[in-house]
């Protein structure tokens, strides 16, 4: 449930994650630099070919990403009909649609671990100011682990409050929930420290 990755072995899947992200950024920049209908239409066709034909993604995987924005795109086209003209509206809407689809293709063909590695690589220059890129993976893992924990604690507190006759008090739920999970996070931090997570690694990895 927690990932939009669709496994595969296509050339798109095998392209390096950093390259795909760079291509996405280049596409975004290019489409805004050249707001012309033929450029945008070509890009849209290219993205659809890469996603549906080369990477063989199911159409609904792409649709799932377009669904949340399509109403917005339709509304946007309406606004453009009123304040500019149909051509500008078409270019603007197709440009956004192309970018959303391209991003969906990258997301569906790239493993989470590969994306984490790219983020760590991008953060590497920040090492000089004390940022530790290797911690990104740990933080992502902790976040994903905390999600069911927070949901489960919330359900438990709601049950306890219902048993005491309280009902529908959302704020009354939030305060005990936050205090409980803050304590939990603090304990987790101590446990990680006890296992050596706080050790500052040497500049070059050394074996003891």
């Amino acid at each position, binding site marked *: 449930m927690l990932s939009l990755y669709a496994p595969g072995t296509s050339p798109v899947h095998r392209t390096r994650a950093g390259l795909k992200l760079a291509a996405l950024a280049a596409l975004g920049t290019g489409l805004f630099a050249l707001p012309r209908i033929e450029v945008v239409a070509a890009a849209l066709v290219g993205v659809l070919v890469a996603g549906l034909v080369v990477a063989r993604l199911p159409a609904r995987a792409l649709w799932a990403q377009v669904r949340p924005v399509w109403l917005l795109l339709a509304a946007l086209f309406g606004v453009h009909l009123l304040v500019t003209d149909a051509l500008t509206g078409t270019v603007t809407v197709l440009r956004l649609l192309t970018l959303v689809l391209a991003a969906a293709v990258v997301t569906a063909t790239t493993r989470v671990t590969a994306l984490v590695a790219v983020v760590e690589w991008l953060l590497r220059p920040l090492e000089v100011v004390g940022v530790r890129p290797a911690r990104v993976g740990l*933080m992502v893992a902790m976040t994903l682990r905390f999600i069911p924990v927070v949901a489960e604690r919330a359900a438990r507190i709601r049950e306890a409050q219902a048993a005491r006759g309280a009902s529908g008090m959302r704020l009354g739920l939030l305060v005990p929930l936050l205090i409980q999970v803050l304590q939990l996070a603090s304990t987790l931090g101590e446990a990680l420290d006890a296992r050596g997570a706080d050790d500052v690694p040497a500049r070059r990895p050394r074996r003891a």
Partner: protein
Amino acid sequence: MKTRDLAYIALFAAIVAVLGQLPAVPVPGIPVPITAQTLGVMLAGSVLGAKRGGLALLLFLAVVAMGAPLLASGSGGLGVFVGPTAGYLYSWPVAAFVIGWLTERFWRRLNLAWALVANLLGGIVVIYAIGIPFTSLYADVPLSVSATGSLAFIPGDVVKAVAASVVAVAVRRAYPVIELPGRRATAG
């Protein structure tokens, strides 16, 4: 930054994710629903402070970008960062940082009124100041159009700011996470 701080940051990234799974309130005529997710932005800033609150939202956005469908609409991946309303997403870490920064300034005398000032300024003014011009520039529509579209969200946001402030004051009393620089002498 200590390991406990990393855990707090990950915790609030998760809280924002959980708040996004609560049922959203649809607004008639506008294709974006009212969600509890910005409540998480406000809570992160007012409980963790500027640095950790801002980082919690950056982490949340990073996890979404990596393909976890954690936004209120059940969407995620890189697509949401290039959509016409992406400016609101980009505003979240800034908003949490500003709320946290103000909360730290008000920390000694923090009551409902001061917490409300922090949450209204950071959680509403900052978010709209980034989101509205972004949509306007990015989707090529006049500023007035994207501003009008946002008006429907103001009442809901005020309710969330009040809720976040009440919770922030209560949590400060029971489990203060923000430490003032002067009192950190004993901490490692």
